[in-house]
């Protein structure tokens, strides 16, 4: 196969589908109770050096509690998929848990501005970076979900994004057109936050899926954090609503407000004050250390983090905001 062009970036995850198949062959298929606390799930399934991917979209339906726990447990040398990684990236950068990064969108928090912490970590030279785009990473997950080594798409050609990626340009044998091959991305472990899951891991969520369906398929190990556990018969009564089937899931952790301070659609809006506080405090090393102690290291769990940041009253306010109740006058 003639390679017309290729990126010089490093491929941080092996796209070989047969190696992935060997892993999936050994994966448990039984519908068993997988409920555990988040601490144990992170201990058991997230290891130093693993390649990690995070569901949701930056600060939307993002498993923030899991990101805190990863930092609290001090994971290091991980690979990370920066697939519109905003507040999740900010947390993981604070812990310097990764040293290999696939970039689509990083260091920014969209309209909110940039994270000084994420930014200086990436400017430090401590992180090996390969460039992609949001859709490129989606396509890489799709290739893994399909159990193939790559899928062809039609972006990034002609840019430095290709040059610093690990993609390859070839010619389509049907049309003679150039396509760029996105190598399959099989993360070692991923975490997805959902509205509802049963004890086996059958999961439902509302709102946009972002890339989570392909991510759930692509990842070797999957931790689900859920706002609520539900009875299994709430799954089986309408299996059309299942977004992630139990067979993909290794652990189910019930974490109410698990996406806070991000948005959980139909549940609570993002806490913009707290997100601003994060970005502001990052500018002062000492203050940031103190802030991280208060909000992550000295918190036993996410319940305590919520309690320290306004507790039930704040959650009710964010719910009202999410539901746009201020418009109902």
């Amino acid at each position: 196969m003639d390679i017309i062009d290729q990126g010089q970036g490093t491929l941080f995850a092996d796209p070989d589908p047969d190696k992935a198949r060997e892993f999936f062959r050994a994966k448990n298929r039984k519908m068993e109770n997988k409920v555990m606390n988040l601490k144990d799930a992170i201990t058991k399934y997230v290891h130093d050096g693993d390649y990690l991917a995070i569901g949701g979209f930056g600060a939307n339906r993002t498993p923030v509690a899991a990101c805190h726990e990863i930092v609290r447990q001090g994971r290091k040398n991980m690979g990370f998929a920066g697939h519109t990684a905003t507040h999740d990236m900010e947390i993981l950068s604070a812990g310097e848990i990764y040293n290999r990064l696939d970039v689509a969108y990083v260091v920014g928090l969209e309209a909110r501005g940039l994270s000084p912490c994420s930014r200086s970590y990436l400017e430090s030279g401590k992180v090996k970076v390969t460039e992609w785009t949001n859709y490129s990473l989606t396509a890489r997950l799709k290739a893994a979900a399909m159990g193939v080594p790559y899928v062809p798409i039609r972006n990034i050609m002609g840019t430095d994004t290709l040059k610093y990626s690990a993609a390859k340009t070839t010619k389509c044998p049907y049309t003679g057109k150039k396509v760029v091959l996105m190598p399959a991305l099989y993360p070692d472990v991923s975490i997805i936050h959902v509205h509802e899951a049963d004890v086996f891991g059958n999961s439902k969520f509302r709102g946009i899926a972002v890339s989570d369906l392909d991510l759930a398929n692509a990842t070797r190990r999957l931790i689900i954090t859920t706002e609520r556990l539900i009875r299994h018969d709430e799954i089986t009564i309408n299996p059309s609503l299942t977004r992630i089937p139990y067979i993909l899931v290794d652990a189910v952790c019930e974490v109410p407000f698990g996406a806070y301070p991000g948005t959980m659609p139909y549940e609570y809006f993002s806490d913009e004050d707290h997100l601003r506080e994060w970005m502001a405090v990052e500018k002062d090393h000492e203050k940031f250390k103190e802030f991280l102690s208060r909000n992550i290291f000295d918190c036993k769990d996410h319940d305590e983090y919520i309690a320290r940041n306004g507790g039930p009253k704040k959650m009710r306010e964010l719910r009202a905001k999410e539901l746009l109740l201020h418009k109902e006058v």
Partner: protein
Amino acid sequence: MTEYTEIEMMICVAARELENGATVGVGTGAPCAASMLAQKTSAPDLVIIFEAGGICPELPEMPISVGDSRTFYKAAMAGSMGDTMEACSRGLVDYTFLGGAQIDMYGNLNSTIIGTDHQKPKVRLPGSGGANDFASFCWRMMVITPQDKRRFVEKLDFRTTPGWLEGGNSRDESGLPLGSGPYKIITNMAVMDFEPETKRMRVISINQGYSLTDVQENCGFELLTASNMVETLPPQENELHILREEVDPYRYVIGR
């Protein structure tokens, strides 16, 4: 001695091959009956997956189509064909049962045409459907089929679905996922596997009432025989009871 029919025999033998906690991609008919029987006997945690998207249903009765509403009744998920086939392609599905009009010594199957002119066949059959997909992707492919010379042929009229291809290493070299391939062939007369080096079909057990000669005489190619060939364990009382009373009470499959 318990009475049983040949189709009951094959279903019971097939069911035993499915270990607890495995995944199986099934079609309608005997494969589905075997999987349901396994769930109700030795493999309560067997996970049934249908190609059109039904994942882990509680089958209330025998489906007529692999896409009918029974295939996702009380399921874990009513997904898509992509969901099922991608799961197979990623290696999440252990077993599949297939059939066909013809099978050769390497377990390749024909369900496309009888005759030699593809554009104007003597007999047009349904084609691959999901058979080639399941046989390409699932780790272990099994076949439940009556044993006769017109089915077990030296040369297929059309190789629809991959078995061990030309035997030896040819399957691994073909590009199909490594380590997958035909596993057991279950007929009314015997159970066959494949000799590990040549990948040729090999008799490993013979059903009550038949001899190796019967098996060979009803096969259009030379069969290998295992050194420790045994008699197939016939259907047991409890297997037959569950098959007849719970799995297929309306005799959709066992009444054929």
